[in-house]
């Protein structure tokens, strides 16, 4: 790549428009390690986007840099679970061995060490993302303070513990399912030849499937509304931005079962009448992106994707987009903005994606896991799906368990089992004495040992004012310090707020400052946290701000002594 010039990189983008901006920025960032004024000027000419806008877009995303960087940038995750596993020490050690400070470049220009938000490798904490100039990113885990720099990229690949028989069938870590293993897209064949679009939606409706991305919205309703919307063309977007701290189920699915996801995307496109789909994969998941790309190529070659699928009138082009490093781009409308080549600012809703989504056209956006359930539902029927779960939480559900358990990993559960059964059965028990569980990710709530018998369903969790969220379950024993966890959550939201609306833009900063001084709080900090938290929750523009205080508010309720000042009433 080193030899490619800016102009050469731009050749394939001639005639393209603003929506090619993220891919161009990625190509430049990878080739040169940064995107300077020359590159921006030439991109501006090619795509007809103002230079200021390009600068604004690149400065929004964490993985793009306007200043020269080191040849190898090591970013270590410092979110709660990696924090427990020694991420801070790892950063400190790396810096000491390289004789540099955090965010500094070694004099020879070779290395820089920095931190990052959750990399979705919580089951192998601590994790790191390595960016090497001229090559793509590589995620590695676990990292030890002694890890040799020259061996960074040759560490044996992580292998997640996974257990499940439906979505995770045949997944034993490490293997990518080829098309031959997966078999032809039988469900798609059934849909095209027998069911038709309405039949597909009918089965999805019968299944009672609820979206797995966090917002818990019924999938069939979304599909029906989009199918009925009048705008053309229509789009399917697979939300593979998985950035909720503690969540890695989508990564496991993408790495192991790419064809299952692609078939789900194709079924959705067939059902709503779309011919173009995007897979928006977070930039920190390079492995997922290339495995999906390889699967797309394989399926296209076999006539299962592309023009006139299985000899029918139905055609579908699936394109992968890599995110630039921004949690907010998991929010569906911010994700559209990112694909369109803008800063990832969420939009005001309504209008909703079903009528005004990507490029203002009717769009279905679904989570990776949601789409992965579709082939089974279509092939075996909606009732098949209902054999798992409860009346309101149908079908098998994936959870990502990390922290102080014997076997952290991704588990396919039958909703209705209790949290205790999950931790003691599937995960081999808690290491040490359980102190608390952070349920649903950074945007979730804390549970205490007396709540272990809650059944893991959407409705039971809601009843105790908790949430499945993204399916992240972080377990902490007596050695964990709630203040330390809250500090890391505070930093996460401060780092990831998009800055669009005032409550979240200001509130995440003020919240973090108060959490940073949690060991020596000021009089009134509890009240400050409550006012900030409730203001963000009730008045923010999007789901990020609306949940940025969720864990903090639940901690204040559970541990009334937190932020209490000696000699002062609570």
């Amino acid at each position, binding site marked *: 790549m080193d030899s490619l010039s800016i102009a050469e990189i731009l050749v394939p983008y001639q005639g393209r428009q603003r929506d090619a901006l993220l891919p161009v920025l990625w190509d430049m960032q990878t080739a040169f390690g940064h995107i300077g004024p020359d590159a921006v000027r030439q991109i501006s000419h090619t795509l007809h986007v103002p230079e*200021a806008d390009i600068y604004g877009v690149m400065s929004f995303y964490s993985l793009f840099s306007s200043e020269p960087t080191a040849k190898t940038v090591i970013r270590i995750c410092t979110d709660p679970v990696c924090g427990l596993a020694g991420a801070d020490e790892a950063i400190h050690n790396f810096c000491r061995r390289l004789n540099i400070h955090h965010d500094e470049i070694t004099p020879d220009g070779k290395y820089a060490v920095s931190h990052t938000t959750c990399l979705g490798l919580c089951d192998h904490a601590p994790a790191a993302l390595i960016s090497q100039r001229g090559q793509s990113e590589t995620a590695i885990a676990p990292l030890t303070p002694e890890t040799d720099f020259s061996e960074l990229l040759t560490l044996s690949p992580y292998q997640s513990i996974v257990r499940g028989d439906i979505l995770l069938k045949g997944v034993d870590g490490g293997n990518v399912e080829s098309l031959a293993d997966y078999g032809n897209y039988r469900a798609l064949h059934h849909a095209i030849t027998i069911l038709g679009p309405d039949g597909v939606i009918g089965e999805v409706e019968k299944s009672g499937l609820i979206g797995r991305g966090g917002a818990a919205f019924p999938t069939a309703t979304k599909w029906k509304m989009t199918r009925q919307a009048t705008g053309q063309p229509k789009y399917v977007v697979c939300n593979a931005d998985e950035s909720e701290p503690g969540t890695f189920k989508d990564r496991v699915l993408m790495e192991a079962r790419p064809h299952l996801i692609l078939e789900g995307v194709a079924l959705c496109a067939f059902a709503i009448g779309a011919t173009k789909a995007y897979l928006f994969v977070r930039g920190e998941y390079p492995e997922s992106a290339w495995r999906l790309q390889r699967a797309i190529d394989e399926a296209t070659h076999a006539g299962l994707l592309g023009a006139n699928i299985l000899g029918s009138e139905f055609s579908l082009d699936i394109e992968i987009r890599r995110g630039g490093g921004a949690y907010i781009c998991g929010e569906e409308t911010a994700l559209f903005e990112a694909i369109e080549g803008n800063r990832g600012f969420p939009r005001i809703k309504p209008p909703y994606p079903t009528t005004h989504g990507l490029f203002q056209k009717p769009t279905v956006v679904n989570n990776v896991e949601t789409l992965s359930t579709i082939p089974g539902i279509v092939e075996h029927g909606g009732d098949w799906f209902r054999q798992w779960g409860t009346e309101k939480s149908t079908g098998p559900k994936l959870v990502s368990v990390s922290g102080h358990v014997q076997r952290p990993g991704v588990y396919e559960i039958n909703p209705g089992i209790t949290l205790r059964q999950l931790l003691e059965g599937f995960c081999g028990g808690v290491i040490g004495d359980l102190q608390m569980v952070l349920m649903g990710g950074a945007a979730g709530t804390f549970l205490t040992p007396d709540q272990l018998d809650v059944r893991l369903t959407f409705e039971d969790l809601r009843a105790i004012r908790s949430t499945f969220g993204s399916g992240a379950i972080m377990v902490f024993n007596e050695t964990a310090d709630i203040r330390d966890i809250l500090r890391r959550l505070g930093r996460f939201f401060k780092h990831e707020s998009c800055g669009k*609306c005032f409550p979240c833009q200001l509130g995440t900063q003020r919240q973090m400052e108060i959490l940073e001084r949690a060991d020596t709080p000021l009089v009134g900090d509890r009240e400050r946290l409550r006012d*900030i938290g409730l203001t963000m929750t009730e*008045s923010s523009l999007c789901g990020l701000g609306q949940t940025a205080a969720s864990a903090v508010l639940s901690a204040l309720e559970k541990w009334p002594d937190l932020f209490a000042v000696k000699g002062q009433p609570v």
Partner: protein
Amino acid sequence: MSDTVTLTIDGQEITVPAGTTLLEAAAQLGIEVPVICYHDATTSNGLCRVCVVDVNNGRLLQAACVTTCANGSTVETRNDRVERSRRTILEMLNSAVDLQHAPAIQTLMNDYDADPARFPNAERREHALLDDNPFYVRDYSQCVLCWRCVQVCADDAQYTFALTFGGRGFDTHIATAFDIPMPESPCVFCGQCVGVCPTGALKPKIQWGMEQGMTPEQIRQSTRRRKHRVEYED
């Protein structure tokens, strides 16, 4: 679909054309909902959220400037929840931004009992004064991020596209590409950004010079300088 909707705002019933915002409907009843980012001439983006109101006692409050009236809804423009949000937003804003030249926001602070010292040891958004052109100065320490300048520079008015945002979250700031000085940017010095700025962040050079106690002659001298450079003030 009917062309009008009927709703109740602070106990008064009102019928308005469909598509009317809650802000407009309230104004018709003589109820003033406070705003910061809203401006008649620019696209509303629902940024500041001081205009939030309570619709049907819902879980979320709604930004009145961008929420349209729904038939049969009951709206409270000022109750405890609304006041807490408005007050907290104002207190947080004041703890981050220099509001001395934003009298309208000062008035709101008083109206909502906002404590200017609510957040001790808070990081402020401080920026060096940018004096890089003969027409206006930019002091982003006074910027509330209402987006108006960026919008009038872009497709709300001028189609010049000199301005954008740098960074994100609390660290967001208004910027040119790579922070180049205005004269090197596409800026045509139309002055629209200065006209819509609700604080002292963008000021005509003359006004700024007079505030600094410069004489008219000194101001003229400074605007005639041929070589413009960025001056930093610590």
